[in-house]
């Protein structure tokens, strides 16, 4: 069929216009705003060039601690997320009954609103007096552990990371399992005949044959970890604890404030620009780092 140009334009136009006007244009505009000192939604903007970036990177300890938290989520959170996701995916694939039910239950947190999950973790699980976890530990007689303060300044970030890992494991189990399911069962049968152990089978068959899925998963994880806002911002209810700041949260705080407006709009936008650059760099870096000859089978 020979398409008419008018039809192509007509079909692309509505989505194209919305996308351009309310997504690409603001994204490009962000680079412009990031070069200004601009407080409040007034017209008074002072051009500072790269000043915002210099200030962020050299004299802002809160930015660095937020950035550090983002990195902890990417690396520490990523390590546990992928270790657990691989473990659960392999258990699901070990020929057990009820694979689909278990998979569906493990994925379940991903369909629940983040704000409901933060409420659950801060008010139903970790909460010192009424929480399920401290009360369960008390019930089994482990009194010292039941007094552990999950929400104290020292622990709050790590207890949040547990919750984030719990949610994301379900998502990556689904991806990893789909990658594993493509691998022909004969490969494993042959390996078993040759006397390969489970660990050998994992490193020699499973991992290499699903390397592309793992690469995509690591990129997806990194991007979502860099973007993360909703969970840390609402965790513990208050959202004012700098221990929980990620770059996404810090951007919001600088731009819109919490209870007191701050309105450092140029400065906040500069954080957004750094966030985008970080996403681009990490995506390229992960792909390069994990690049291998792709295996055809």
């Amino acid at each position, binding site marked *: *069929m020979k*398409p008419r*140009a008018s*039809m192509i334009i007509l*079909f*692309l136009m509505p*989505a*194209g216009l*919305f*996308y351009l*006007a*309310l*997504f690409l*244009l603001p*994204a490009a*505009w962000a680079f412009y705003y990031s070069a200004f000192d601009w407080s409040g939604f007034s017209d008074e903007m002072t051009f500072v060039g790269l000043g915002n970036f210099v200030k962020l990177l050299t004299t802002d300890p809160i930015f660095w601690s937020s950035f550090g938290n983002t990195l902890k989520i990417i690396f520490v959170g990523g390590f546990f997320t992928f270790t657990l996701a691989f*473990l*659960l995916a392999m*258990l*699901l694939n070990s*020929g*057990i009954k009820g694979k*689909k*039910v278990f998979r569906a*239950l*493990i*994925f*379940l947190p991903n*369909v*629940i*609103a983040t*704000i*409901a999950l*933060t*409420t*659950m973790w801060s*008010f*139903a*699980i970790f909460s010192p007096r*009424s929480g*399920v976890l401290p*009360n369960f530990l008390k*019930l089994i007689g482990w009194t010292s552990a039941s007094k552990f303060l999950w929400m104290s300044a020292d622990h709050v970030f790590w207890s949040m990371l547990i919750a984030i890992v719990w949610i994301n494991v379900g998502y990556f189990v*689904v*991806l990893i399992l*789909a990658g594993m399911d493509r691998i022909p069962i004969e490969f494993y049968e042959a390996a078993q005949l040759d006397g390969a152990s489970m660990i050998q089978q994992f490193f020699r068959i499973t991992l290499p044959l699903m390397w592309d899925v793992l690469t*995509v998963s690591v990129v997806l994880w990194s*991007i979502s970890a*860099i*973007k993360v*806002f*909703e969970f840390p911002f*609402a965790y513990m209810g208050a959202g004012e604890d700098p221990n929980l700041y990620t770059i996404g949260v810090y*951007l919001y705080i600088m*731009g819109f404030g919490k209870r007191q407006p701050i309105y450092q709009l140029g400065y*906040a*936008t500069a954080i*957004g620009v750094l*966030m985008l650059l970080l996403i*681009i760099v990490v995506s390229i870096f992960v792909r390069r780092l994990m690049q291998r000859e792709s295996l055809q089978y």
Partner: protein
Amino acid sequence: MAAISTNPNLPDQASFSTRARKARIKKLLTQIPAYLILSLWSFFTIFVIGWVIISSFKTNAEIFRTVFDLPKVWQFSNYINAWSQGNFALYLRNSVFLTSASVAGLLLISAPAAYVLSRFKFIGRNFLTITFIAGMGIPYSLVLIPLYVIMSRLGLINNLPGLILIYISLSIPFTVYILTGFFVTLPKELEDAAVIDGCNEFQTFWHVMLPLASPGLLTAGIFNAIGMWNEYQLVLVFMGNEEGRTLALGLYSLQNAMQYTGDWVGLFAGVCIIMVPTIVLYVILSEKMIAGITMGAVK
């Protein structure tokens, strides 16, 4: 194995079947750790969700006193309070309106674009496709402030139609990505047949190709609907007045006020109101959704 054991000429048939049974038992024994770990993980999730649901029927005093007990009297009044005093009736109406209008508008404009991008050959097609999909890598946080300026100039801050426009625009990349994936798989012959039968290009799209892509529309629709129903960052920024709050933002402000109100059961009732619809949808459509997740990431 069945063929062997029914062979009457096989002398040690009995011992063979015991060996088979032993092998089966051995397999079951080695699987015990797998069942145990998977059950523990799943149980934790069910338990926490169930605990919140049950606790939403308790009194505030019971939350602290009898953590693992059922409520003495099921307090349906918690929901009545959330509904009327807590404004959750309004929030629910806003969420339903916002989500359904956004998803409908989004599919209405994304499907034609995805159709053209995936099935027609023209100059700049690859560039346009990449441009459309590139938005998936752009964090919402980056566009918040410029978008706020644009929307306030247009007078679309603090109202639901404005938020619908934002939801639609920001969801285009993901939706076009999912839908092109579906349109590409449809056979070319159907298009040709439609043309031979006298359909024009628009009729071919509307009467033939769009219905065939309905599984894709459903997948894209569910993911966007759940995402929009659940999200609170954009509502937090673009919805300043109480009238336009969604369930997610309502729950957020309820959670924020906890240190003053101490209304635990009201909070848990709010959690249930926002969570139960998506869980029900998931129970009905989990297979389809899980298949949708792996689309694209796993070829």
